[in-house]
């Protein structure tokens, strides 16, 4: 499903403050796996996840998603890949504040190439699967942290992507809510979804099938 081959990333390349954030990283994730990426602060976890999410580029190596090489492809095609193949969950939820939960979940459907008339139903189904259907019409800035993250997860799965990428999804939540969100990921995993979770929380990582640890931009 996901193949990373010898990827390197250098920030501010060619300048005096150049910084190698990723150094020759290689790994792959199979369909249906629940993988965590762990490491200390500054290890390069987020950098790696952003590359996987196609919102950042890399300087060397190759990244394949569903056997498509993500390198030198058009902005248009990249947007389609983000839309159809990737669901991204962020630490700060990344919801549009003045949209309702369902309006947030509908975003990937709004931006999708395929025009469909059942956007509402589809968004509602996604909300139901994360237990948020009752709050569909609540403004997202009126939701609790856990509800926000559930909404963000509903948005990440609404287009049935190849992979769900999460960057510290529990980082802004109390431990009880955090474990609820983890349960949700595990449930999605049981449904056959491919999930990669970035975390520095050992407890969270332990609940995943496999742990990839990076330190100073290298896999250890």
């Amino acid at each position, binding site marked *: 499903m996901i193949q990373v081959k010898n990827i390197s990333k250098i920030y501010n390349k060619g300048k005096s403050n150049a910084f190698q954030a990723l150094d020759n990283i290689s790994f792959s994730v199979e369909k249906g796996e629940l993988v965590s990426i762990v490491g200390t602060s500054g290890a390069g976890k987020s950098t790696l996840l952003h590359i996987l999410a196609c919102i950042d580029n890399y300087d060397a190596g190759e990244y394949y998603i569903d056997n498509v090489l993500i390198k030198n492809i058009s902005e*248009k095609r990249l947007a*389609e890949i983000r839309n159809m193949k990737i669901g*991204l969950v962020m630490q700060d939820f990344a919801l549009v504040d*003045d949209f309702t939960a369902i*309006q947030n979940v509908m975003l990937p459907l*709004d931006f999708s190439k395929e025009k469909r008339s059942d956007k509402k139903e589809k968004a509602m189904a996604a909300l139901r699967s994360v237990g948020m259907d009752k709050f569909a019409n609540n403004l997202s800035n009126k939701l609790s942290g856990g509800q926000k993250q559930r909404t963000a997860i509903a948005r990440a799965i609404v287009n049935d992507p190849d992979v769900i990428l999460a960057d510290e999804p529990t980082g802004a939540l109390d431990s009880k809510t955090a474990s609820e969100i983890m349960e949700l990921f595990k449930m999605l995993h049981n449904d056959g979804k491919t999930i990669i979770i970035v975390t520095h929380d050992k407890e969270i990582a332990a609940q995943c099938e496999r742990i990839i640890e990076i330190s100073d931009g290298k896999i250890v």
Partner: protein
Amino acid sequence: MGAFIRTAVNTIKKNITMNIITTLQISAVFVITVIMVSAVCVRYRCYTPFRDYFEGNGLFCIFSVEAYTGNIDKVYDVIEDTNELMSYLHGPEKIVACHHLSAYAEVNDQICDIQGLSYDDEIIDRYEPELSSGRWISTDKEADMIEAVVSENDYGWNVGDIIQIVMLNTETSVKRDVKIVGILKENTKIPGLFSARIGTDTYNLFYYPYSYEYEGKPLLLFSYSQLAGLENAPLQGIYSSTLIRYDDSVSAEEIKQDQRLMSTMGCVFSTDLKELDKNSKDYLHRHIYDLLPIIIVLLILVVVSSISSSALSTRKRLRDYAIYYVTGLQWRQCILINLLQSVIIIISAFILSIVCVAVLRYTNLSDMFYISWNKYILFSFAGITVFYIIISMIMPLIMIFNVTPKQILTK
């Protein structure tokens, strides 16, 4: 598109005061533009038909019939037609003139006073006064009946009616059937007749706003050539507005001589067209001179308020745009949301200004502003719209292309 519209509307709502101010400013620009452009166009409507005369080398003259004889009933000594007038002068190229018709109407065997005026074909072809019904007189020589356009009247004369007009010449008077083909709007400007000169002389001297209520007798307009072609043709002396064009080789001195000569032949006023044309152009554009500064000030306000409010709202929205990017939008497409906001504002301003213009038109205020829709108004609207959209897009374009969505998300 759904998310775009929602975001655009939400963004406008969040900054509603600023956006309402901008909308009001733009609609004020629209309304003033309508007033300005229609005033200029209305004025040009009377200027353009005879523009080549006004701009050429020549004279504008007013002839009076009373001046020939001191007695309107003794209708002789008049200059019959433009060819005759030409023969007296230093070889003018062309003359167009209005003619006086000595005539009265017979209604139920009663004699009714009328004002009769006939036009050279060139006047009929070039200028058509506003009619409340019917059509303008034709220069078609095949017309089977004498045609006339009349002013409003108390005789119940209407389009299609055939009325009896007695027309005089030096020997006889002949009663003729005249078919009414059109009715003039009250106060519409017709070529010919004349009133006291007020202010500077402009092309307006060529016209007279005819009001039946004020004049007390109906005006009948004919084709000079149609009446001249009749057996026992009525007398149609050159009367009131006359335009004379000379070849450029005719000297100012020769023209002066002609002016002196004509003043002994019933010409009560004549002026060089160069002076008249200069005054005319000032008059034509006076509304532009008066209103343009207001429009410019308003546009500056629009620039300031729309640049600042678009910068403000884009800054607030950048994180949302980054979310759209993550969920499948191209970064540069986010600019469409700003475009949509500008479009919503300009459409609201447009609707508001249409309402204002409609109110101006259907209330007493419409006397102050004569409003007539024409293509130049649409051109100006298009220009203002494009201008506003460009102005309102400057800041969003700069801000969006200066950051990457990743920078925003990881801030």
